[in-house]
């Protein structure tokens, strides 16, 4: 093991949150910052001529190599967990920019009550309405505290959208159910393709409140407060699962790296696979001393005064488990906090609709589309409903290619191959489209993570084991969304449709979203959380953890914007307070 020169700060992971932290520290402090990223370098020019659906959409060239590392999964505690041998329900990234390179770039905010989910739900319905084995919690921060940081990151990425609530004033055409925002979006919404326009018209007719999807894909050329210029989107349709070839979609490589490159105190080291956080076990005053990593077979120790853990959400939990930092959660006793509150999101397609007219759906962008918030958790009245909370319903216009969408035919077409199927599949190719629902996944005592006793990664370290399944609350929410979606596609003029058969058990064969959350959750007490509201580890005060792993449970919003907002808040706390006087930033 080779010991390297010490750094002031080591950041584990070069994705959205790690590079945002590096940019903030680089711009606003003189601290020496080393970012360790296990994948290779990436930049916008690498994406030229990568409009290759087979390579990217099907073979997932942008995604973590599952031959090196995966996770294992089981539905419940006594089941034998097996590895996800191929990418399935979520798509972790690898390389500079991480999953922030191939994301879809929808950037909605969470509703204010999401941050105080437990107390607000009890306040509204009493604790009897909560599922028996729930583990939902408040975050330890409120929406009002987060709002300035939401605004800041919207300006950073050039969010394109339409406000529905500026300082409490409701605005038609935006999301009238959203929390207050201090200002309008930096840019107007992206263009709305035909399928989403059909949805917009139909939902208005039905009395709902459609709004254009907030997008981190620029509707027009934009220069952000850091002076980073990016062009507007061309709606080429090669967006989610691709890197943007022109830089219109905000990605860490096109939004953060140009600034980081200017700061001599920040370096990004590619090919560095971090295996352990090293710390002194000295009780209350425990400190992390740095991290060890492997690069091309050689082991290194990177000492640092401050460790920022910012790898992909599941890897944050795994690295702490592998390193022995904190007490692993036990679902049987409820002791320990590390690995608890694993949530995903109720992301599914309630209905596949068939239209008479062609949709031209090759045109679009990952974030283009129309949403309604009328079925959101804070909007629905659950008094007469068999579930709590809810989600957004969307008519996405991602831009579709044939490998991802050829073969959708109405139920009346029984053949799966041959002339009759071919004829129908060609006819319906551009006449079929799906609505998408994204709902809240509550945290439960039995959904958690620990280390797998059998399977290992390519370094010989145990894989992370996920114990995860839906409960009736999610299943009923999905059924509700499906029933509403059927009404809506009928109003859109669909000639035929195929409805979802329901959630059933958590299905790793189907891509859902990459919004896995929890494991190193934030909260007000070290009894029930791993990090404090500044994302600082309760025991190791010189360890901060960024990303979706800190969310106590999922909301119905995409998590990226909240991850970035919380990262900014933590960066401010580090620059303004921690670097001046290292120590705990919040009392327990």
């Amino acid at each position, binding site marked *: 093991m080779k010991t390297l020169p010490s750094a002031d700060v080591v950041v584990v992971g070069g994705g959205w949150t790690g590079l945002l932290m590096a940019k903030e520290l680089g711009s606003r402090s003189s601290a020496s910052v080393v970012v360790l990223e296990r994948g290779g370098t990436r930049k916008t020019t690498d994406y030229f*001529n990568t409009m290759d659906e087979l390579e990217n959409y099907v073979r997932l060239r942008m995604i973590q190599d599952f031959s090196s590392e995966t996770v294992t999964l089981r539905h419940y505690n006594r089941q034998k967990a097996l590895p996800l*041998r191929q990418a399935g329900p979520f798509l972790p990234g690898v390389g500079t920019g991480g999953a922030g390179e191939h994301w879809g770039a929808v950037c909605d905010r969470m509703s204010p009550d999401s941050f105080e989910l437990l107390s607000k739900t009890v306040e509204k319905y009493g604790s009897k309405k909560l599922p028996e084995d729930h583990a939902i919690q408040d975050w330890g921060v409120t929406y009002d505290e987060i709002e300035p940081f939401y605004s800041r990151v919207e300006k950073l990425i050039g969010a394109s959208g339409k406000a529905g609530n500026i300082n409490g004033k409701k605005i038609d055409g935006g999301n009238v159910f959203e929390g207050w925002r201090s200002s309008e979006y930096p840019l107007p919404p992206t263009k709305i393709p*035909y399928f989403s326009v059909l949805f917009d018209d139909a939902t208005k007719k039905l009395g709902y409140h459609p709004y254009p999807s907030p997008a981190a894909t620029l509707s027009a050329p934009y220069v952000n407060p850091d002076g980073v210029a990016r062009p507007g989107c*061309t709606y080429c349709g090669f967006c989610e699962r691709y890197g943007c070839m022109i830089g219109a979609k905000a990605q860490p490589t096109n939004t953060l790296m140009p600034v980081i490159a200017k700061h001599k105190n920040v370096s990004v080291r590619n090919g560095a696979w971090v295996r352990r956080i090293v710390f002194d076990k000295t009780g209350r005053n425990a400190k992390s001393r740095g991290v060890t990593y492997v690069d091309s077979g050689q082991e290194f120790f990177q000492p640092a005064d401050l460790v920022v853990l910012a790898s992909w959400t599941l890897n944050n939990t795994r690295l702490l488990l592998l390193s022995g930092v904190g007490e692993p959660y036990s679902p049987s006793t409820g002791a320990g906090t590390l690995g608890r509150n694993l949530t995903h999101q109720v992301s599914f397609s309630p209905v596949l609709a068939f239209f008479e007219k062609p949709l031209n759906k090759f045109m679009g962008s990952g974030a283009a589309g129309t949403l309604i918030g009328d079925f959101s958790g804070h909007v629905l009245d659950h008094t007469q409903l068999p579930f709590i909370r809810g989600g957004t319903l969307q008519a996405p216009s991602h831009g579709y290619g044939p490998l991802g969408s050829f073969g959708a035919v109405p139920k009346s077409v029984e053949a799966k*191959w041959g002339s009759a199927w071919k004829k129908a599949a060609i006819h319906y190719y551009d006449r079929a489209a799906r609505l998408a629902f994204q709902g809240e996944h509550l945290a439960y005592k039995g959904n958690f993570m620990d280390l797998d006793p059998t399977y290992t990664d390519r370094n010989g370290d145990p894989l992370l084991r996920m114990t995860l399944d839906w409960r009736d609350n999610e299943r009923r929410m999905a059924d509700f969304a499906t029933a509403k979606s059927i009404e809506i596609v009928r109003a859109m003029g669909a000639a035929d449709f195929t409805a979802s058969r329901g959630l059933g058990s958590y299905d790793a064969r189907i891509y859902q979203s990459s919004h896995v959350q929890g494991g190193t959750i934030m909260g007000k007490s070290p009894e029930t959380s791993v990090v404090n509201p500044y994302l600082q580890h309760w025991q190791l005060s010189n360890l901060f953890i960024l990303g979706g792993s800190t969310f106590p449970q999922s909301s119905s919003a995409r998590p990226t914007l909240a991850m970035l907002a919380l990262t900014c808040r933590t960066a401010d706390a580090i620059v303004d307070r921690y670097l001046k006087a290292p120590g705990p930033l919040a009392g327990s």
Partner: protein
Amino acid sequence: MRNANINAGSKNEIVEENFATSRPLSADQEAGKSVFEVLGDRSPKQMQRRQFLVISAAVVGGVLLFGLDGSTQRVSPQDRLIHIPLHFFDAAEAAIVMAAASRIFPADESGPGAKEAGVVVYIDRHLAGPYGSDSHRYTQPPFESGVPELGYQGKATPAEIYREGLKGLAGFHLLPMAEQDKALAQIESTLFFSLLRQHTIEGMFCDPVHGGNVDMLGWQLLGFPGARMSNYEDVDKHFGEAFRPGPVSLGGHPRDNEG
């Protein structure tokens, strides 16, 4: 690109009859520039060792066939037979796959099919590459079976699944079409068939740089424009009517972004 003089017959010739189809023509074909590109190492040694898929230029009729390594060779349009070096299948296997893919996605009144689009060439190269050998799948033992929601847990690679599956289809390409359909119906629920079906779709509609979708035939069937850089002017227009700009392959752009 070099001109390849490879008209010599082969014991493994599979010469196809012409199909009468309503195949849309590419700009190149309309301009009478029909050429055919064949990929592969052409050293005499390789020629002896390798098996070839031999097909009539009139059947494929297309322009573009690229290999995994991006190299190409040009065959003069007068060549009646085209020898495509096989990377994974032997000639008999290739004949079976070509026939089976053509029953899954046949040439018929709704347009050309898997044979015309070079689907077998795509599958052959794909199985010879990292996908075929599961280079990106987690393949550490133990292999155990679990609930279906945990996904494919088998040990067999796509290449091995094909090898095994094709044994059960020996002589398939010699059967009449109705018999071929019966044989496929019998294996419909197998993993092999689902891969074959999936790869047939991929070979129909992938970018031609991968060996299938010859002359962008598949894209022309659907009106998919391929690697079109901008729809800015059109994305919020053409509502309710088909907008079908001509297709573009990645092969039309320089491949200078490697490494």
